[in-house]
């Protein structure tokens, strides 16, 4: 029964800064607004699609997707109302497309609307999307928590350049979801009430919800697991031992869901030496003097004990992996060769590569040059532990390592003026984690083509961070763009994955990180989802009696 | 006595020292504290000029301005023929050895963190090129001269009694063989039984070294003892200046008369019979002196004239100067 269970209290390790996903890519904000706004379809925990505001998922079979792959037609669920009581219609969907595709709007989810020619309302309950080119994966716009529908009436005045200054709308969007915002304090707290017009009259079970921003994972976890002040704690990535201690408190449990998030090392294939002139550092003009030899790269990977890394760093929140694309199941390669540490093998490979310790200082050298690496990552306690451990292992095989930590806002900030961004990669090795949106990693893998290597000409905005370049790989990516068959696509993905990891070792996957959150024992109905918002089924959550 | 035969060493002419008073939004100058207002006197070589007056009347300021430790507002000071007030900084420094000062508070005038040797040696460091041994010899010589045990050279000021400290201050002043010393209440902070020691020392030194003193004090009996001529200050001005005997036996200015009569005498018989002139009220502020004669607010013999016209400072008898309307006629007569 709606509203019977009182208040739902959620704490997030980061507070939401807006309720409009289109203006933010932060998961904190996406989670928050998913309580209010809904897409046409969303992903289930297993990665498959489920209809939400759509009556059904359009497919080739039911004619929703045209045979040439150039259109997709969504039938909307009838009788859906906005939380202000007005009807939800195809116009709202069309408007949302217009809103995000406005070139002046700075829509954060623009990529979801890539390749769309037009969106039109066929009738009040039918929306047709036409693509410029045939699309192998047409489920992008209006699918998933990143691309929900906005109410036209509310956002009409917020098109283009006005988008970000529509604070009232951005902070209190009218949605079709189970809750509606009553109070929003940016970067602090959002307060919700059950949507009186929600389509299922029995849901949500909670009358109110609060979404508080904590400031760190530790206290977020503690507020759920130890003091039980909160029912749900988003992103409680804490040390494994502390995890165990909190579980022992018996007030809640941790839930995990594995998506594509992989913590990995990236090896710079170009020379980051500061001796090079600015503008040529870390560009394809100069291949890396050490990593050009694949045996060195392999040795680096072999020296690492991934299970120990995970045990110490993540505990239940990650598992060792050798893949760049570890999930969903159908795309994951069966690559497990890296999981056992092989120190001797690593040493042998380095010997073979000609790196030997000639002067007896414990560090290998070749042609008078020491085997010495700069290893950078963002400031983050777990990453620093990883750095220390990896440094130790590499030291053990005779490699000197200098560690460097960079403030995350700088490291990931993308500022072309800063020497410390991960794109500039002014280091030999760097560590970070990345994943893709939705379930299909095609675009993600396409980032590693030769021409996507970051370079000064385009403000270092490329995504091919290791500057990997293999014509075969690029060819396979092209081929994939025209492959529609699911089975074949899966094979191609596995192949691409192996090419960058096992074969080339430019990306050294370490661990597949899970979404890791804390749930109080009194909260029922939580189903972790790695492909959508964690609150995707918040309408079904209820309080244990 | 000290008539024209002696050579004037210090000639002070129209010395004024005003401290500005600021007020208002932009700290504009709205007036002056006339600490020393148009003071003229001469000190002859080898003599002691006593300068007496109540607290705050400008004695110290006058002494300091003479040595140009303050930058006076107006006037001229000739010491041994050289104009101290006009000298540029470099020359002034060269003039310093000639004129020295002994301060009121022997505790405060010695740097608590320097040894006696350091304190006495400082002027030597500044103005001579003696080597260590010579310097030490000179320091010992000075200590002997002022009656300090040589053992004390490495002690700190706090380890001495007040009288001994004042000796250190005197030794410092003597280090450069000055001709002229301003003694700014050198005994005021000392105990009665010790005052005499210091005064005797100063007298001995004057005799042996031919020093010239400006002896500032508010202790009239001590001034009577040490000074050859005495100047009385009131509110920034000299109201009377005369030879010691003339001043103590026949003071002309009502203020001097009151001052002298107020000094108690350690003789019970005399005390019971003595008639005091009790002045009423307090000294006006030098920032806002009364119109006319400065002393008109407290003067027992005040006349109407006094409140309007400032009396002229003039010689009413040979070597006897005063600024009082009561003595104007006589002055006029002698002048005529």
């Amino acid at each position, binding site marked *: 029964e709606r509203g019977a269970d009182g208040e739902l209290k959620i704490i997030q390790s980061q507070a939401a800064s807006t309720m409009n996903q289109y203006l933010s890519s932060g998961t904190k904000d996406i989670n928050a607004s998913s309580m209010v706004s809904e897409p046409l379809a969303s992903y289930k925990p297993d990665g498959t699609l489920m209809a939400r505001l759509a009556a059904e998922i359009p497919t080739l079979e039911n004619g929703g997707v045209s045979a040439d792959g150039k259109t997709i037609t969504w039938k909307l669920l009838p009788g859906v109302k906005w939380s202000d009581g007005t009807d939800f219609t195809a116009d709202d969907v069309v408007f949302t497309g217009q809103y995000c595709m406005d070139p002046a709007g700075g829509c954060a989810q623009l990529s979801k609307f890539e390749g769309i020619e037009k969106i039109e309302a066929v009738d009040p309950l039918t929306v047709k999307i036409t693509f410029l080119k045939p699309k192998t994966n047409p489920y992008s716009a209006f699918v998933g928590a990143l691309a929900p529908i906005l109410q036209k009436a509310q956002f009409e005045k917020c098109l283009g350049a006005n988008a970000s200054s529509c604070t009232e709308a951005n902070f209190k969007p009218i949605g079709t979801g189970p809750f509606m915002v009553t109070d929003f304090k*940016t970067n602090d707290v959002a307060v919700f009430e059950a949507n009186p017009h929600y389509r299922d009259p029995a849901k949500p079970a909670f009358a109110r919800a609060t979404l508080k921003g904590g400031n760190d994972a530790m206290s977020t976890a*503690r507020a759920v697991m130890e003091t039980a002040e909160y029912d749900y704690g988003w992103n409680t990535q804490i040390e494994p031992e502390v995890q165990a201690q909190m579980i022992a408190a018996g007030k809640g449990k941790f839930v995990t869901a594995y998506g594509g998030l992989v913590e990995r090392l990236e090896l710079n294939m170009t020379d980051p030496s500061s001796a090079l002139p600015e503008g040529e550092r870390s560009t394809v003009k100069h291949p890396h003097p050490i990593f050009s030899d694949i045996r060195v790269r392999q040795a680096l990977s072999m020296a690492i004990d991934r299970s120990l890394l995970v045990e110490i760093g993540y505990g239940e929140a990650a598992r060792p992996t050798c893949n760049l694309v570890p999930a969903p199941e159908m795309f994951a390669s069966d690559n497990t060769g890296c999981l056992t540490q092989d120190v001797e093998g690593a040493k042998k490979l380095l010997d073979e590569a000609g790196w030997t310790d000639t002067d007896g200082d414990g560090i290998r050298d070749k042609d008078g040059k020491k085997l010495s690496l700069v290893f950078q990552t963002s400031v983050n306690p777990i990453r620093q532990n990883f750095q220390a451990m990896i440094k130790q292992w590499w030291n053990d095989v005779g490699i000197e390592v200098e560690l460097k930590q960079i403030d995350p*806002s700088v490291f990931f900030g993308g500022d072309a003026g800063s020497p410390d961004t991960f794109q500039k990669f002014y280091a030999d090795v760097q560590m970070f984690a990345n994943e893709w949106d939705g379930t299909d990693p095609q675009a993600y893998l396409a980032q590693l083509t030769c021409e996507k290597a970051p370079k000064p000409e385009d403000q270092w905005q490329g995504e091919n961070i290791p500057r990997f370049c293999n014509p075969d790989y690029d060819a396979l990516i092209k081929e994939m763009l025209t492959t529609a068959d699911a089975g074949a696509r899966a094979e191609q993905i596995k192949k691409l994955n192996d090419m960058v990891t096992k074969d080339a070792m430019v990306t050294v996957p370490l661990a597949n990180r899970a979404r890791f959150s804390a749930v109080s024992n009194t909260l029922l109905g939580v189903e972790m989802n790695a492909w959508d918002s964690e609150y995707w089924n918040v309408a079904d959550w209820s309080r244990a009696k | 006595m000290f008539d024209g035969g002696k050579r004037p060493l210090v000639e002070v002419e129209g010395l004024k020292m005003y401290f500005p008073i600021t007020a208002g939004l932009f700290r504009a100058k709205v007036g002056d504290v006339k600490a020393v207002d148009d003071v003229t006197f001469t000190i002859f070589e080898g003599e002691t000029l006593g300068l007496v007056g109540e607290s705050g009347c400008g004695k110290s300021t006058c002494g300091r301005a003479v040595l140009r430790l303050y930058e006076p507002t107006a006037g001229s000071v000739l010491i041994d023929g050289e104009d101290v007030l006009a000298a540029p900084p470099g020359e002034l420094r060269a003039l310093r050895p000639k004129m020295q000062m002994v301060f009121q508070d022997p505790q405060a005038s010695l740097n608590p963190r320097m040894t006696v040797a350091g304190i006495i040696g400082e002027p030597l460091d500044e103005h001579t090129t003696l080597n260590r041994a010579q310097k030490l010899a000179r320091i010992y010589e000075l200590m002997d001269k002022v009656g300090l045990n040589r053992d004390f050279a490495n002690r700190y000021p706090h380890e001495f009694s007040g009288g001994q400290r004042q000796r250190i201050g005197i030794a410092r002043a003597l280090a450069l063989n000055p001709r002229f010393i301003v003694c700014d209440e050198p005994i005021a902070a000392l105990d009665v039984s010790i005052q005499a020691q210091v005064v005797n020392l100063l007298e001995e030194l004057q005799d042996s070294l031919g020093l010239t003193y400006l002896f500032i004090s508010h202790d009239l009996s001590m001034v009577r003892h040490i000074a050859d001529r005495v100047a009385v200050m009131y509110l920034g001005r000299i109201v009377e200046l005369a030879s010691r005997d003339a001043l103590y036996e026949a003071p002309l200015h009502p203020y001097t008369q009151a001052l002298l009569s107020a000094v108690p005498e350690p003789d019970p018989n005399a005390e019971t019979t003595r008639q005091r002139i009790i002045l009423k009220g307090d000294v006006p502020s030098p920032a806002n002196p009364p119109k006319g004669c400065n002393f008109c607010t407290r003067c027992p013999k005040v006349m109407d004239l006094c409140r309007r016209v400032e009396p002229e400072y003039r010689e009413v008898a040979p070597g006897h100067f005063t600024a009082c309307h009561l003595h104007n006629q006589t002055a006029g007569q002698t002048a005529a």
Partner: protein
Amino acid sequence: MFQYTMRRLLIAIPTLLIISLVIFLLLEAAPGDPLGEVPLTVPPEVKAKMRSALGLDAAWYVRYFLWLKQMFWIEPMHLIDTLFGTHLADDMQRVISFQSRQPVMDIIAQRMPQTLIVVGSAYVIGVLIAVPIGILSAYRQYSWFDNLGTFISMIGFSVPTFFTGVVLIVIFAVKLQWFPMVYDTTLQVTDWDSFTKQLRQMVMPVTVLSLFNAAQISRFMRSSMLDNLGQDYVRTARAKGLTERVVVLIHVLRNSLIPVVTVIALGVPSIFGGAIITEQVFKVNGLGQQLILAIHANDLPMVMTLTFIFAVLIVLFNLIADLLYGILDPRIRYD
């Protein structure tokens, strides 16, 4: 006094202008981009448009003067509008946060209450604890009480608040479950129940902060009391046959409070600055936390405005401290 105040205020104007310029230039010089958070998928042209929408393509001095105008002209007018329902500033651009695109002043107004309540009451309580402790330890100098007080205040001084905060949380929120560890900023005090709730959630952050404040102020109080206990007028008061209570609590205290009150006044701006660390630990999410967030997000208008307000408060309370000194101490005349 009035003239003195006016003069100080006049001097404050250029000082504050220089401060604002210094802050602005520093922020300008700092690397980092307000669009840093915009996803990499957004094409450069769009980014350029967003940049110009933020006014970032103008020269720095243009933006500086714009900020000055917004801060000193539009914002006050807006305030008048909201107070009196006029429409002076209707179409004028207020100072807008890059981060949330909300008027900076609105965010500040939103966060001010929790900061004032928590940090402010911690300050008041700190002072209330510190004064008696200072008095007693000076009166009984070198007694066990004094030594203990010295020791504790030094500890309070030397232990970071993030440590004390967590210790309190572990003991009182986790183990004993007496107080909540997360501060609820949405709580409205309407009845007794919500009042006790508010009290409960304030206990820990306020304790941490007031201990820290008390440690400092009690030191000042003590030394000021010691200075005055040795004064001659104390002997006079005793010679009049007054009781020790009157001597210490009226004669000495009144004098000792003069410097302490000014120290206390000087500390007031720090209330508005928020206690960054304590706010983080207890999730008070007040102005201190906002400042940190804004700095990390390169939210120039927010940082600029917050720091400037802070500077104004410091200058203001410096003046207030001086004036208080003049009021409390009849010997001081400002003119």
